[in-house]
């Protein structure tokens, strides 16, 4: 009987927890229906803030709300908007994999920004891109007059060109392979002569990422933490079931679309404030790429380096990340 009561108490606690209100003043659930996709945007944070930060998640096919736990401190001072991109996170609808193009992602981003500006007309709007989210942001910001729609961009561990990234990554893998005595990884990369025209034929993503992870390119993930998983499955609007479907829809993206991405020559046209965040130990998007990005931008902004981080500084150095994010939007 005692065990039964304990079980009922635990279940009720979970139930009540799932219904509890958000801590901060803004809790606005939005959905954007656009070109077959129904994309959720959750806006959370301090209503008194004049700064709204739109988080562009990575992947592609990742999720935004699933990472909210790492931005909750920032919500005390900012308004955060978590947008699940098409065929990502909890996004639904009938979007087709053929729509997973940089053009479409940038088009979607524009609609999300316009919607947020309509609902929050007096707020300054910043983009915070992580990994693939950076690629999407560069695509958007370097198209037409789009950059005039936002007040700044924080680029975190992401690229402006697939080819440039692959070359940097190849060097990182060879260097780490030499240090760690991984002959197979070294020889594989050493024999690869990548050019912009042959990379789509030569790159084997499975092998590439196998080497990155084997050499410690990103040894920590939020999902390693049981508390994070519990929160994700029970107390978050994020839908892990639908998110798990997404990866299989990106075959065409990885076979073709990703190799078309190159905004290198357009970065010099950027005239809004750019802040570069980077994890120093990142092996997915090596630190050298932070400086390459900086060199292409007007004013060559000095990257903010997170010395104890790999690919996701918001996860591994959360306090410092929050401080820097608030600073970057001031």
């Amino acid at each position, binding site marked *: 009987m005692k065990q039964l009561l304990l079980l009922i108490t635990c*279940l009720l606690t*979970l*139930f009540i*927890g*799932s*219904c509890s209100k958000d801590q901060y003043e803004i809790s*606005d*659930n*939005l*959905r*954007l*229906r*656009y070109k077959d996709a*129904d994309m*959720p945007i*959750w806006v959370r944070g301090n209503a008194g803030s004049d700064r709204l930060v739109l988080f562009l998640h990575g992947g592609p096919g990742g999720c935004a709300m699933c990472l909210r736990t790492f931005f909750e401190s920032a919500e005390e001072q900012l308004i955060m908007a978590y947008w699940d991109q*098409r*065929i990502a996170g*909890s*996004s*639904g*609808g*009938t*979007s*087709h*994999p053929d729509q997973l193009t940089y053009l479409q992602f940038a088009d979607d981003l524009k*609609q999300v920004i*316009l*919607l947020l500006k*309509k609902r929050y007309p007096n707020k300054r709007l910043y983009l915070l891109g992580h990994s693939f989210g950076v690629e999407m942001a560069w695509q958007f910001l370097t198209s037409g007059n789009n950059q005039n729609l936002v007040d700044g961009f924080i680029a975190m561990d992401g690229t402006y060109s697939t080819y440039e990234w692959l070359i940097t990554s190849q060097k990182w893998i060879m260097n780490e392979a030499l240090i760690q005595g991984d002959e197979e990884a070294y020889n594989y990369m050493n024999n690869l002569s990548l050019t912009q025209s042959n990379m789509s034929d030569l790159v084997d993503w499975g092998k590439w990422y196998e080497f990155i992870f084997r050499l410690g390119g990103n040894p920590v993930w939020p999902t390693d933490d049981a508390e994070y998983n519990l929160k994700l*499955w*029970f*107390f978050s*609007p*994020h*839908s892990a*079931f*639908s998110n798990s*479907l*997404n990866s*299989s*829809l990106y075959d065409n993206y990885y076979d073709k679309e990703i190799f078309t991405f190159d905004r290198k020559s357009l970065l010099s046209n950027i005239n809004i404030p750019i802040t570069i965040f980077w994890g120093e130990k990142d092996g997915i998007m090596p630190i050298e790429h932070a400086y390459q990005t900086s060199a292409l931008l007007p004013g060559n902004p000095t990257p903010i380096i997170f010395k104890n981080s790999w690919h996701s500084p918001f996860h591994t150095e959360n306090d410092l990340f929050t401080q820097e994010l608030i600073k970057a939007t001031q």
Partner: protein
Amino acid sequence: MKNIKYRYLTVLLFFLANSAFAQSDTISKQWLHVGYFGENITHFGLSGGYGYSFWDSFKKRKNVHFHQLYVEGNFSFLIHPNNQAVFFLIPELGYRYTKNSNWYLQFTAGAGLLRTFYLAKTFEADEDGGFKGIPMAGKWSLGSSFSAGFGKSIIKQKDLFLFTQIRLINEHFYNQKTLLRPIFQLGLLKQI
């Protein structure tokens, strides 16, 4: 004298035992059920349904074994807070094996409709930067369902069962794929 006492006692025990395990040779053809329906405790909902058995047979040996084929209409919903509410209308075909009217096992397969309502203010964007609010936004989907369940009689009359059921519902189409929803059910089934 002693033997007579034992004989009475034996007869008495026989009757007691027999009444305790007495079985009906019939089983109800109709029932209603209601109960919890959710992906887990925090993605919660309710389900109700009506079942009708169109074929049954029983065998009486040591125990009474009932076999039934039935159709069932189920209406259910679940809420994923701050995300969506999903309504399910799924008719099913089922097989149930009941032993001694004490407990049963059942398996079902069905197909029906799902309707999602987003728990969010939904706006449709046009290419000119305009937005139109969509009340009651969501989406229709086709659904197929498979389940396995177990029920246990909880009153003397043996027409009220506590049941639990594990269900897999496929949502077609979700981003051009099939979304699999595992569902847990716990409820009461009343034979009528």
